[in-house]
């Protein structure tokens, strides 16, 4: 059910990732101040954008779930959020490396995107204890969806508040001069963004397929067990 179109998707992902890596290493310019480490920007920023997109998508899928009552939407929402949290770890790690390279510290507070990302990440980490401490599966799905929607609405508000409060030293990627990156940086960045997005969607589909398969297995097992006549 989820594996439709999977093959072309994975092929596209591999191609995109390979292209992106090639561009990052050979095409994009070497930064005068920050050197080679600056190239981590091509991983860090797309990862952050895709991760946030994943959180918001998880929230939208959760709305779908609550409105339709169809549990498969909750599974989709869960996987999206779950993958985004993992990406989030990557964002924080790469962000930290970049901060070290650019400003000499492993963490900087006057970088609004990184700071608000940390808060969002801390919030979403609570998704796991919330979800897995509710025993009834139907309730678990419903409460997780409520969380996903609340957290999804929180993301933009949080960014707004942090942004307003901090001085900006972070080179704002897409708002500088109306969204133009100099020369070779732009296509490299865009390809990386596409590659990261494709990677996310592929992993999302992969995990959904695997979950679906194991759920089907469980339900078959249950049906077999129910065949045994109950002793009265």
């Amino acid at each position, binding site marked *: 059910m989820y594996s439709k179109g999977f093959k072309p998707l994975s092929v596209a992902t591999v191609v995109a990732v390979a292209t992106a890596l090639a561009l990052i290493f050979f095409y994009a310019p070497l930064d005068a101040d920050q050197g080679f480490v600056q190239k981590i920007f091509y991983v860090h920023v797309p990862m952050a954008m895709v991760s946030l997109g994943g959180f918001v998508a998880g929230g939208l899928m959760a709305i779908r779930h609550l409105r339709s009552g169809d549990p498969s939407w909750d599974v989709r929402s869960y996987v999206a959020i779950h993958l985004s949290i993992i990406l989030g770890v990557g964002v924080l790690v790469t962000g930290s490396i970049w901060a070290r390279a650019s400003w000499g510290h492993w963490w900087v507070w006057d970088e609004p995107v990184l700071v608000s990302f940390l*808060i969002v990440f801390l919030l979403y980490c*609570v998704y796991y*204890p*919330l979800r897995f401490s*509710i025993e009834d599966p139907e309730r678990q799905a*419903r*409460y997780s969806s409520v969380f996903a929607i609340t957290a999804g*609405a929180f993301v933009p508000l949080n960014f707004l*508040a942090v942004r307003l409060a901090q001085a900006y030293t972070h080179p704002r990627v897409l708002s500088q001069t109306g969204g133009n990156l100099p020369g070779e940086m732009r296509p490299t960045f865009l390809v990386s963004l596409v590659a990261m997005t494709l990677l996310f969607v592929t992993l999302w589909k992969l995990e959904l397929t695997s979950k679906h398969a194991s759920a089907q297995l469980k339900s078959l097992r249950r049906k077999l067990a129910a065949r045994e006549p109950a002793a009265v």
Partner: protein
Amino acid sequence: MIRAARAILAKDLRLELRTKESVPAMTLFTLTVYVLFHFGLDRNSLDGSLAAGVLWVTLLLAAVVGVARLFAAEREQGGIEGLLLAPVDLTALFVAKAAALFLFLCAVELVALPAFALLLLGPDLLDPLPELLPVLLLANLGVAAVGALVAALATATRAPELIVTLLLLPLLVPVLIASAQATEPLVRSDPSADELGRWLGVLTLYDVVFVLLSVAVFDFLLED
């Protein structure tokens, strides 16, 4: 719905007056934390951004204490089922709980603010009070709405107090930022009302979003 919300609120206020479980605890907590800050920062008087920060961090932590207890009576004595059996919209429950929390926060602040002025604040608090009031009210509203939602979310889990703490604090960061930033110029040695409008705007936006969102999703919680 309003009738039911009033009935639930009246019941909660009566319970609180009798058991005195939330407001005194929150107030005591706040005062204790002020003392901790005195020793931790080794300062006799604060002003400006440090004062604003201490004031608001303490209030928000006290709010967590209150939120954790918000549904305690229902959890322990099966009150939710009593409500589910009555012909009331669950939104009434949200309104009542959020209103109760709002009132509790106001009550705590009635003591906490003068205490803060006495114990830690350098500059005078009476002067900027009229500007401080809208900040307090808007912040309380946001905390009340989000707090009621988080409390309801946590009731289904095995460790509700823990989930409340972990969940509420990140969600309140925008409130903290806006309130502290709004308060900071008011508690400087030479107070002014810099950018008050902007931060009140942020608080209002937060309140609108979360009140609407909570009302929309609350129906999906609590029933089975």
